[in-house]
């Protein structure tokens, strides 16, 4: 079950690659709330937990994209930078950035726990 997505309360998902590396994306729920996503900009390099990784902009609004992890941003998914609509279409199958040297993390929820959390 190591490849299962885990979720933060600020609506990012984390997929572990190893103990110190992970992909980070946006939850389907958050993507639906934002609506058509038209621009994504990840400009952070070294981040602590809850630091802003960058901006996600939809037609409706701009939203901060927070880091659920402390570590180093080593890659941004160029595919979604070029075509942000991919997040709107399938948020939980496209990663936004890859974080390495992970030293800390926020409380992460299982899919079930996250679903209960957004129900509240």
């Amino acid at each position: 079950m190591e490849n299962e997505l885990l979720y933060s309360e600020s609506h990012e998902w984390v997929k572990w690659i190893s103990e110190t590396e992970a992909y980070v994306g946006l939850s389907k729920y958050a993507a639906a709330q934002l609506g058509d996503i038209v621009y994504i900009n990840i400009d952070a390099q070294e981040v602590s937990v809850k630091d802003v990784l960058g901006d996600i902009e939809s037609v409706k609004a701009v939203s901060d994209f927070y880091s659920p992890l402390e570590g180093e941003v080593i890659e941004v998914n160029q595919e979604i930078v070029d075509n942000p609509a991919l997040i709107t279409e399938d948020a939980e199958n496209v990663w936004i950035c890859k974080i390495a040297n992970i030293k800390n993390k926020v409380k992460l929820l299982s899919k079930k726990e996250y679903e209960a959390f957004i129900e509240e």
Partner: protein
Amino acid sequence: MVKKTSMYDEHVELKGKMVEFANYLLPIQYTSIVDEHLAVRQRVGIFDVSHMGEILIEGKNAIAFVNYLVCSDISKIQSSRIKYSLLLNEKGTIIDDLLVYCLSETKLLLVVNASNKEKDYKWITDNKIAGIKITDKSDSYSQIAIQGPLSKTILTHIVNADFLPKKYYSFIEKVNILSHEVLISKTGYTGEDGYEIYGEGDAIKDIFNSLIQLGITPCGLGSRDTLRLEAGMPLYGHEMNEDITPLNTSLEFFCKLEKDYFIGKENLVDKGITRVGLFNLDKGIIRENMEVFFENNLIGSTTSGTFLPYLKGSYAMAIIDKKYSLENTVVDVKIRNRFVKAKVVKLPFYKRKKVGV
């Protein structure tokens, strides 16, 4: 209390995301702002705009009275014609923008912004002259807008084309559709060809439902805003407010200074600022209330802005110092903590191609 329009149940059934706007529950979108926007540019969409206000002005001097209230010249308005105009206060700044429908020489219907209708009604009543009757008809009208290149085509499924107004900004007061009597005007707020239909709640709801059955795309407030912005149309509370005169928001065309008198005329001052279109040359999305600079000098701020779905780019309107308003001037816009380069471009951003039908 927040109001529901006569089509509220339909919106919920169609999975509209309901929000409160100007004291009404209305859909911000059904599926996606982008899809709804493109449906209007390429086919046809329908909007519930029942929140708009309608104020009826009656009396022998109805035209003269309204002409005294607004800054454009409506003295020669003819029956079945519509004029866009602005209500100004004594300072010459904008109370609201509105459409004047001429029902007859003694009867005008003013269609005003939802969020301003109480303010407008009070202002008009406070400035009333003898022999004029003013009635707020907002609660007796529902309204839908049918917009897009196929608007005429779809409407002719339920009404004979002879009963559709031909000229832009004209209307037919009594048209029978699905056994209901409604008013149809050739107007809209999207930059496309289209019609707006006014009538009683049940009538408008029946027409809405039959057009949905025919395949029209239901559209929410979100795409209404992106469409009007793409078409360069000003919105009250953004490009217009009580701090700005028509001269400073590129609405001087609707301000007839040669007219003898209208409220606000003597105090109309040009503060040397104007409304422009901006196109973002860098990454990111320019939105409203962002500061605009030219070589480190603050020259104004944006009033509306987003990613425009048909033009596929970040565009904004801004009110800036006239010196920098020439086309192709490159300015800096502060998006949160960084700056982007933007170019002054001609308004409207989008203009429909006129094609013969």
